[in-house]
């Protein structure tokens, strides 16, 4: 449900970046979504189609790049990748449950492809 506001925010950033770059039409927006977040790319696409109408980003392709979660273990200092299907786990090397995620909560616009 919050994807509406999120899509508005994406558009706002894109419009400002294009303005700063001197204008043009946006053909592609690359968005990085960490797998620990709850943003649904299908909903963003859905809202984008409507919200982008009449803007420099109308019809642009949204490229979503998922970023896997990486945990750093407090027990042995190693790091591991839990995978999206396993929320509860222990370090495969030492069995410790004291881990912190060092990657996977990201949600940012990586780049915009603009044509004149």
């Amino acid at each position, binding site marked *: 449900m919050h994807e509406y506001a999120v899509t508005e*925010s994406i558009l706002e950033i894109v419009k400002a*970046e294009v303005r700063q770059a001197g204008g043009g039409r946006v053909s592609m927006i690359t*968005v990085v979504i960490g797998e620990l977040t*709850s943003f649904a790319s299908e909903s963003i696409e859905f809202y984008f189609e409507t919200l982008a109408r009449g803007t420099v980003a109308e019809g642009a392709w949204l490229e979503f790049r998922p970023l896997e979660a990486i945990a750093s273990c407090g027990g042995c200092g190693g790091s591991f990748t839990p995978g999206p299907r396993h929320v509860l786990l222990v370090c495969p090397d030492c069995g410790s449950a004291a881990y912190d995620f060092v990657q996977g909560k990201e949600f940012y616009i990586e780049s*915009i492809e603009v044509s004149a």
Partner: protein
Amino acid sequence: MKIEVKKNVLQNNDLAAARNRSRLAGKRTAMLNLMAAPGAGKTSAIIKAIEGTRDSRALAVIEGDITSEVDSLAIEALGIPAIQINTGGSCHLTASMIGAALDHLDLDNLDLIIVENVGNLVCPAEFDLGESARVTISSVAEGHDKPLKYPLVFREVDAVVINKTDLMPYCDFDLAFFRDAVERLNPDAHVLRMSCRDGSGSEEWCRWLMNSVV
């Protein structure tokens, strides 16, 4: 032409949250973000917190609901300032909504602001409000598997309150399973048991608030 952007999609919210956080730190006012499913007992737990801490702490409450003033009226009836935010359909509070609400509170004379987020176990966890502490409530009738199904919120909080323990005899809530799941997701989280109905555990809840939050 490719423009490298590298900008956080939630940057506006994060900026507003940072503003709220420094404003509150400047006033030495703590803010607690309470997130839980609809009906888990957020308002009831806030009322317990008011009853148990009001003698020594100056409190205010910010109520987030899609619509209605039911919750803020309940708090005001206790003589505690309450600001109602109606999100008008949005499933979570944002930092700028909180910023606007703070304008209506006497921050110089407040120790703690409790924010009741919109009843929802998913979206609120994604939006920093500028709070100094986060709590989630799980009521036993919701089932012991909630940490597995909604890991984000359980991972982000300082404390997990298990509410409605008076209903234990009527539910198949597996306390050990729940505790183990929380422990693995968030070993630092403090887990408390409470019944807002019979009052058990509310002393510990208030003690935790006064020791760890404000």
